[in-house]
């Protein structure tokens, strides 16, 4: 149990602090997520129109250079970076649990063999 606790606390603390920082500094993240929702619908639009719209959007994004763009970019950064910690953290927990399981299995095997002997 001692092995997982500290890293678990570390992960949780990191996630919470990043989430707090994100919400404090980049209030535009909610609207950014809204934009993602819009992206997912566009696949039904003809590809030429979609490409033209994307180009226009990219140009507008670059030309704007306003708070909206940067809060979108920065909130993306924080969400994605924390996301990697969460994904790898979940894999870590699964590995830890399965490791414990296999270790106990090994122990049982050894005890059974010792008892037989």
């Amino acid at each position: 149990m001692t092995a997982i606790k500290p890293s678990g606390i570390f992960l949780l603390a990191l996630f919470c602090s990043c989430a707090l920082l994100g919400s404090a500094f980049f209030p535009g993240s909610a609207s950014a997520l809204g934009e993602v929702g819009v992206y997912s619908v566009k696949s039904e639009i003809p590809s030429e129109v979609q490409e033209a719209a994307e180009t226009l959007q990219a140009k507008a994004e670059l030309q704007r250079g306003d708070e909206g763009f940067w809060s979108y970019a920065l909130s993306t950064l924080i969400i994605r970076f924390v996301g990697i910690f969460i994904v790898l953290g979940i894999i870590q927990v699964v590995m830890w649990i399965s490791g414990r399981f296999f270790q106990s299995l090994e122990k049982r095997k050894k005890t059974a063999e010792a008892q037989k002997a």
Partner: protein
Amino acid sequence: MTWESFLEVLNQILITQTGIFHLTPKLFVMWAVGLLFIYLAVAKKYEPLLLLPIGFGILAVNFPLVPLMGFNDDGNRQLFQIFYHYGVEWEVIPCVIFLGLGAMTDFGPLISNPKTMVVGAGAQLGVFVTFIGVLFFGFTLKEAASVGIIGGADGPTTIYLTAKLAPHLLGANALAAYSYMAMVPLIQPPIVRLMTTKKQRLIRMKQLRPVSKLEKTIFPLSVFTIIALLIPAVTPLMGMFMLGNFMRESGVVERLSNTAQGALMNIVTIFLGISVGATMHADKFLTPKPLLIFGFGLLDFAICTMGGVLTVHIMNLFLKDKMNPIIGAAGVSAVPMAARVAQITGQQEDRHNFLLMHAIGPNLAGVIGSAAAAGMFIAMFG
């Protein structure tokens, strides 16, 4: 036939059927670039398996009138264009390389010390810092994501993501990724020394527990399940990676495993190198962006290394059995080069401190981490 008409025909032939009169200074610059990478591969042995075919690809497509990277008069693709289209654009080659990598990888050190998984995540810091950094220089969001992933130090992932988001930057990104991967022994040690004290570098870690065969066999299946559920966008890469590893660990398809990590891997490496090199025509490459990519790639690598070391420092605040922060640098993928560098850096302080197996853990976590980062970018912009 008059002398004039003979000269006219000769002139026509020289102009339309030879490349001599179509040479431009830009092409000479690209020859120099191609020859530089061939030199690095042959003389310096920097990632020769990739840099040699890339260098040749650069050289070959930068001769005038060569029918390699375009379309024939009847609209069919030319040779290198076929390799590029079906190999890279169709995302086949990076995934097949991941299959081979999976078949070559022993996840034992990572399974026996799961804590190192987080180090692989921390070492992706540079990916995101660079993503923001390049936005200031006029890169679009998609381009920024593809440049950022260079710091993940994972060639196939870089190529996979760039081919999806910013194919026009493929040559520069791949070249930067492989060049810096080759320079890990030069880039990482000074950063590690800067970020650690001598006492920290002397930390000896507990010996890793042995991992059973069954545990190793279950590992690729469980990781695949988690990745497929959480980041489905990266399933082609991670799926092939885990399939390769499952073939290896299951032990029942040794022939397939051997082919994946041997012949198949070698075949696709040839096509990958040529395809990447062939995208670097002078007109596309000689712009300010590739230079910026090389500059930011280096910064990216440095920040990723710092991120890994910093993550170990933070983890050590909570851990009873301290980790040697040198292994944090191996959190960038670059398998197994980064782990070897960690071992050498550790032994420079204490000859009897063997960090290699401990460093392999974050090293492999870095592969999963960089693929996860790529998956997140694809999910967002792909």
